[in-house]
């Protein structure tokens, strides 16, 4: 029995239970549980069939993103250090004060 058939049977069972409960409770419950169960089944389907292209794409974004952050940060550190050196008062002036 493969994962898809398990999901399909789970979906059928959950739909059956939910429709019975809904019929009992009428409008108060409405389609809440049916929709939620359907959402869970759809989500399980998505997890079991990840898209390899998306994963490769996101790995690239992950690498480039971390590299980008460290790159920009490095430049900011460099500029701030330069600014600090350029704008700090010379030692002699400090001593005079």
């Amino acid at each position: 029995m493969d994962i898809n058939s398990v999901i399909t049977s789970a979906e059928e069972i959950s739909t059956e239970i939910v429709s019975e409960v809904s019929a009992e409770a009428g409008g108060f419950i409405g389609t809440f549980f049916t929709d939620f169960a359907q959402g869970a089944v759809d989500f399980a389907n998505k997890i079991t069939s990840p898209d390899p292209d998306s994963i490769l794409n996101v790995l690239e974004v992950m690498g480039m993103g971390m590299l980008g952050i460290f790159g920009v940060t490095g430049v900011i550190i460099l500029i701030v250090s330069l600014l600090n050196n350029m704008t700090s008062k010379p030692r002699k002036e400090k001593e005079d004060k």
Partner: protein
Amino acid sequence: MNILLQTIMGVQIGHIIMWAIGGLLIYLAIKKDMEPSLLLPMGFGAILVNLPFSGAQAVIDHIFEIGINSHELMPLVLFIGIGAMIDFEPLLTNPKLMLFGAAAQFGIFFTMFLATLLGFDIYDAASVAIIGAADGPTSIFVAQTLNSSYTAAIMVAAYSYMALVPIVQPPIIKLCTTKKERLIKMKNTNKKVSKTTKILFPIIVTVLVGLVAPDAVALIGFLMFGNLIRECGVLNSLSETAQKVLANLITIFLGITIASRMTAAEFLQVETIIIMLLGLVAFVFDTFGGVMLAKFMNLFLKEGNKINPMIGAAGISAFPMASRVVNKMGLEEDKTNFLLMQAVGVNVSGQVASVIAGGLILAFVQG
């Protein structure tokens, strides 16, 4: 009579669950003092929009349209206030601390990967991952720009975990560090930063980030504009207004407006639970990233110059909670070990780094 009954009969179980969630947010805000300025309006708003045939929905939808959906106006204006509140001096005296802010964005990218594995498309994965920016306006900005259908869940997760930083971070920090590392004392630098540096910093950062990630220029620009108002020294009245009146005004509307997306139909989905869990993962791996970089750097530093790795955890932008947590943990280990100055420096760098991360994500994902 019929009209009254029609409304009461219109109550669905989804509405009741959302009232309970709204009540929980209000409870956390009032009783536990968790981000009350946002969780309280969000909680009340959640109740407001989940009343059957709610007349408030249209008004709040309208504010959402103007304030958030159309060019993310409210989060951006809030950033002016946040920028005016931040003192970058601890960072400017020791700019190397910025590296920890960068490392602490690891959780964002790791979560993005995880969310993709869980079947979210790349836009939603990026929007969910940005919870790890630990920064409400950035989260809203990115999620809205990428047109995510989970903005409300992302907002609730972002602000809840920001409030939960004192609970989430300590166990992770302890797990990643040894007692010996936690006892490391760091030298306090008594350097002074010139006014010129303080004024030039926001301008330079805006230009630099704008060149690298143009999509983030609004975010970084408004943040740094607020900071420039603060540091220029000639706009004290505007700076005070931005810090208090402006920030408070936007915060009131932001919380209740976000709640417009908290209708039962939109919020009560399996994905909301997954998003809450992914948000936690993002915060955990942010903390991990910051601490591990400090540990790595210590491999190359001489005794006496070593970094207390706990300060790396302050690199998430939840300001000032993260720096307070680190300082408190330092004092718990040794009552004479004050890490607040360094932790605050790392913390404000996390604020800048999270915006850069948001901009880079937008740039890469939107292509």
